[in-house]
C-alpha cells in the first residue's frame, strides 16, 4: 500500500453541512475512507455520527459540501440509491424481518423473478452464495429469528454486501452481541478488509476500535476534530478529543476538584453492591454508598451505567451478586419493591419512563407518595395541593399553576417535577440517571445544588451523567464503568475528570494508578 492517499481514497467527504431547525447537526465535516481499511468514526452523543451516516445513505440531503466516491461526485437520494452507488449500511437494530426465512431476507426487494413470479430456488441459491462470501453455512429456508442475534447481524451484513458494495457502514453493530459474538464479527470485518472493502465502523466500544480499526475520525458537536491513524492515538487522547478537553486542561481542573473533595464523609454504609450483574448487560459491579454521600457512576454511553441503576431499582433485577441495605441483603424485583426499601429513581428517558405527560403537575408530584400509600389511602385534595405547592416552590418549578399538564412544561421543569415526586417519599437512596440531560444551564446548576443540599440532610445519591465533569464535580466517590464492566473507583481527592477519563482509557480492567502516557 504505497500509493498516494489520493489514489487510495475511495470515499471522500468534505465540508458537509446539515442544519435542522434550531440545530446545526453537521458543521463542515470531512471524512476520508480508503480501500481495504476499517475506519472508526468516534464521538459522543450528538456529535453528528448518525447524521453523517444518514447523509451518506441518502436519508438526509446535505445543505452543503460534497461526497466523492472513487473521485466521482455522488448525491445519494435514498438508501436504495446509495446502495446502487456502492454504499451499504447495517444499522444497530437488525433491519431484517425476523419472521421470514434467511433466503427471503437476503433477497427481499431483489428477488430473482420469472415472468413476474419469484423463483424461490434461484433465490435460495443466491442466498447461499451471499453467505458463502462470509464463510457462513446456514439453512437458508429456516426462519431468521431462529438464529442468534449475532447470526442475524451477519445475515444483515451479507445482505448489504450482496449489492456489489464497495463501502460498508456498520452502525453500532456490536451493541447487542456478547463477547464471543463480537469476536466473530470483528474477524469477519478483518476478512472483508482484506478483500479490499472499505468499512466505516461506528461504535461506543473503545476496545473494539483499538482491536480492529486502522484509522479514527473524531467528531464533536457536529464538527470535525481530526483524523488519526489508530496506532498513533492513545486512548486518553482519543477520549479527550471526543469530550473536547485537552489533557493539560484536565490536569488543572484536577487541582480544583481536590479542594472540593476534602470534605470527609463518615456516614454509615447504606447500600452495598457486591458482584452485581445481569446476563447480557453488566458484570461485576461493586460499590458502597454511605449515608449522605454522592456516588457518581461514570462511563461513556453504553458502558453500563443505566443498566446498573436499573438493577438497583429493580427495573431489570440483577441475576448475580447481592445488594445489602443497612447490612441486610435485599433484592428488589420491581420498582415498587425498590420504592418500599426507600429507593427512588429518575430515569434517563424522562419522556417515556418518567413523566406521565397528560396528568397535571400536581398529579405527577403526588404519584409516588400515593402509590406507596396504596389505593385506599387517597391523599385528600388539600394534601395534594399542599404537596404540589411545596415542591413547585422548593424546586422553583416554572408552571402557570399546579393544574398545568406536565407535557407543556420545559425539560428542566419536567425533571424538577420528577425530583419533587420522589422527594415526597423521602427516599434514603436517590438514583439520578442523567438528571441534567437536555435541560438548560440554569436548571442544571439548580439540580447540582439540590444534590449537595440533599446529601447534607443525610440522603444518599447515586449520580449518573455522561458529562464526566459534572460527575466529578458532584460526587464524593466515582465508580467508573467501561464496556459493561466496572473498571475502578475513585475516592475523595482522586476524583477528577482527568482521572475518570484516564481510568476509562486503561487497557486492562484491573485499574492501576499510573496514567496512560500522553
Amino acid at each position, binding site marked *: 500500500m504505497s500509493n498516494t492517499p489520493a489514489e487510495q481514497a475511495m470515499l471522500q467527504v468534505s465540508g458537509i453541512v446539515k442544519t435542522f431547525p434550531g440545530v446545526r447537526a453537521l458543521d463542515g465535516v470531512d471524512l476520508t475512507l480508503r480501500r481495504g481499511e476499517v475506519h472508526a468514526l468516534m464521538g459522543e452523543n450528538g456529535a453528528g455520527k448518525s447524521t453523517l451516516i444518514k447523509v451518506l445513505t441518502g436519508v438526509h440531503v446535505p445543505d452543503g459540501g460534497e461526497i466523492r466516491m472513487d473521485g466521482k461526485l455522488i448525491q445519494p437520494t435514498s438508501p436504495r440509491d446509495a446502495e446502487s452507488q456502492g454504499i451499504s449500511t447495517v444499522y444497530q437494530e437488525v433491519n431484517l424481518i425476523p419472521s421470514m426465512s434467511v433466503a427471503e431476507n437476503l433477497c427481499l426487494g431483489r428477488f430473482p423473478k420469472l415472468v413476474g413470479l419469484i423463483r424461490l430456488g434461484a433465490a435460495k441459491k443466491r442466498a447461499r452464495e451471499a453467505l458463502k462470501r462470509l464463510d457462513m453455512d446456514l439453512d437458508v429456508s429456516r426462519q431468521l429469528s431462529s438464529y442468534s442475534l449475532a447470526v442475524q447481524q451477519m445475515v444483515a451484513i451479507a445482505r448489504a454486501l450482496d449489492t456489489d458494495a464497495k463501502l460498508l457502514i456498520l452502525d453500532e453493530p456490536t451493541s447487542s452481541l456478547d463477547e464471543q459474538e463480537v469476536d466473530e464479527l470483528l474477524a469477519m470485518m478483518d476478512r472483508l478488509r482484506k478483500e479490499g472493502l472499505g468499512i466505516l465502523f461506528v461504535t461506543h466500544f473503545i476496545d473494539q476500535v483499538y482491536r480492529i480499526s486502522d484509522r479514527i475520525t473524531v467528531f464533536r458537536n457536529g464538527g470535525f476534530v481530526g483524523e488519526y491513524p489508530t496506532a498513533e492515538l492513545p486512548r486518553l487522547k482519543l477520549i479527550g478529543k471526543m469530550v473536547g478537553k485537552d489533557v493539560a486542561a484536565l490536569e488543572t481542573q484536577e487541582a480544583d476538584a481536590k479542594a472540593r473533595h476534602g470534605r470527609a464523609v463518615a456516614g454509615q454504609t447504606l447500600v452495598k453492591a457486591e458482584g452485581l450483574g445481569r446476563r447480557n448487560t453488566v458484570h461485576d459491579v461493586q460499590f458502597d454508598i454511605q449515608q449522605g454521600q454522592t456516588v457518581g457512576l461514570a462511563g461513556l454511553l453504553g458502558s453500563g451505567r443505566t443498566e446498573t441503576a436499573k438493577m438497583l431499582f429493580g427495573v431489570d433485577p440483577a441475576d448475580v451478586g447481592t445488594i445489602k441495605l443497612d447490612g441486610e441483603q435485599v433484592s428488589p424485583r420491581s420498582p415498587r419493591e425498590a420504592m418500599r426499601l426507600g429507593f427512588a429513581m429518575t430515569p434517563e428517558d424522562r419522556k417515556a419512563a*418518567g413523566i406521565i405527560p397528560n396528568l397535571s403537575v400536581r*398529579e405527577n408530584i403526588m404519584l409516588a407518595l400515593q402509590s406507596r400509600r396504596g389505593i385506599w*389511602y387517597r391523599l385528600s385534595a388539600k394534601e395534594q395541593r399542599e404537596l404540589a405547592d411545596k415542591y413547585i416552590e422548593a424546586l422553583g418549578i416554572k408552571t402557570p399553576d399546579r393544574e398545568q399538564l406536565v407535557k407543556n412544561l420545559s425539560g428542566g421543569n419536567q425533571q424538577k417535577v420528577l425530583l419533587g415526586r420522589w422527594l415526597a417519599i423521602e427516599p434514603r437512596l436517590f438514583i439520578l440517571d442523567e438528571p441534567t440531560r437536555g435541560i438548560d444551564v440554569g436548571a442544571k446548576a439548580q439540580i447540582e445544588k439540590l444534590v449537595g443540599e440533599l446529601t447534607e440532610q443525610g440522603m444518599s445519591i447515586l449520580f449518573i451523567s455522561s458529562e464526566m465533569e459534572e460527575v466529578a464535580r458532584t460526587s464524593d466517590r466515582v465508580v467508573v464503568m467501561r464496556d459493561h464492566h466496572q473498571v475502578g473507583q475513585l475516592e475523595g481527592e482522586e476524583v477528577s475528570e482527568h482521572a475518570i477519563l484516564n481510568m476509562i482509557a486503561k487497557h486492562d480492567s484491573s485499574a492501576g494508578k499510573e496514567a496512560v502516557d500522553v
Partner: protein
Amino acid sequence: MSKLYDEYRRLRWESALAQLRWLHSLIGPVIWPLAALAILLIFNIVFTDNFLKIVITDGRLSGYLVDIFRDGSAVMLVALGMTLVIATGGVDLSVGAVMAISAVVSASMVTPSWLESALGPWAVQMFENSFGMWLAVLIATSLIAALIAGAWNGFLVSVLRIQPIIATLILMVAGRGVAQLICEGQIFTYDVPQLAYIGKGTLIGLPFGVWLVGLMIMATYLLTRRTALGLMIEAVGDSDLASHYTGIRARTIKFLVYVFCGFCAGLAGLIESTNVSSANANQIGLWYELDAIFAVVVGGTALTGGRFLIFGTVIGALLIQTLTITMTIQKVPPEVALIPKALVIVLVCLLQSQTFRQKVFGRFKKKPAAALSAATPANSAGGEA
C-alpha cells in the same frame, strides 16, 4: 358602611365565580355530547307528541323519558366497565358475548329440563323446594361466569401482553360459542316473575334496572374518585412504563379493569334477558360492544387511554339511546336508522377535537367583526364574507 357593602359584593361575586368555575369543570369536558343530547331532546319535544309527558300507572312511571333510561340501562352498564378499560389504553370487544354467557347461565338454571340433564335431579329439587336460595345461587353463578370471562381477558392482556383488541376478540367470537354450548343450541324461555323482576320490575316508580345502573355508576364513581384508583388508572393509561417506574402495579390494574368490565357486562346480560324472560345466545348483547365504545368515546374518554369521565360516558350512553328511540318514534326502519346514528356520533367526535373546531369555527370567527363594521345583520353577513 359602603366599604362593608363593597366587601360584601366582592365576596358574592367571588363565590358566584367559584360556582361557575365548578360548573365549568363539571360540564366543560362533556359540553359537546351534552349539547347534542339537548338538541336531540328539543327535536323530540317539537316533533313528538307527549315526549315529555310522564304518567303514573299502577305505581310506575312511564313515558318516553323513562324508556330512554330503561332501554339504555344495559348499554350504560357495559359502557361503564368499558370506560375503565379504555382509560388504561385497552378495549374490550367481548362484552356482548359475556352478556350472552351470563344470560344463558341464568336462564338455563330456571329450566328444569336443563337442570335435570346437566346437574342432576338434586338441582331440580332445590329449584323447586328452596327457590329463594336457588335464585341467589343462580345470580351469583351468572355473575361469576362473567367475572371469569373478564379475568380471562385480563390475563391475556396483562400477563401474556396480547394486544387488547386481539385478546378480547378471542372471547368475542368464542364467548358466543361457550353460551351455545351451555344452552345446547336452544333458546330458553321461562316464566319466573322473581327473576324477571331484575329486568322488568319497578322499584319506587322506576324500573329496577335503572336503580341497579344508578347504583353501579355511583359505586364506580366512589371507587375510582374517592380512592386513588382513578388516578392510577389514568396514569397507567397515559404511560404504563412511567407508572411502573413510579411503583404503580400497572399489570394488576390492567387485569382488574377487565374483570370489572366483565362484571358489568354480566349484570347487563342479566338485565337484558330477564327483561324478556328468555335467553338467546345469538341475540343477547349483539353489537353492544360497539354502542358501549361509542358511548365512552362520545363521552370524552380518548381511545388512547388516560383521562376518563364516568359522567361523560353516562351522557354518551343516554345520547345513543335517545338517538335509537328517536329513530323508532320517527318510524325509521332499523336498517336505515344506523346511518343517522353514525352521522351524529361522527359529528360529536369531530366537535370534541380542538383541531377540527379551530378549522371550522376559526373561519367564522372573523365574520362578526366584519358584519359589525358593515352594520349588516349577522345572519345575512354569512353569505358575503
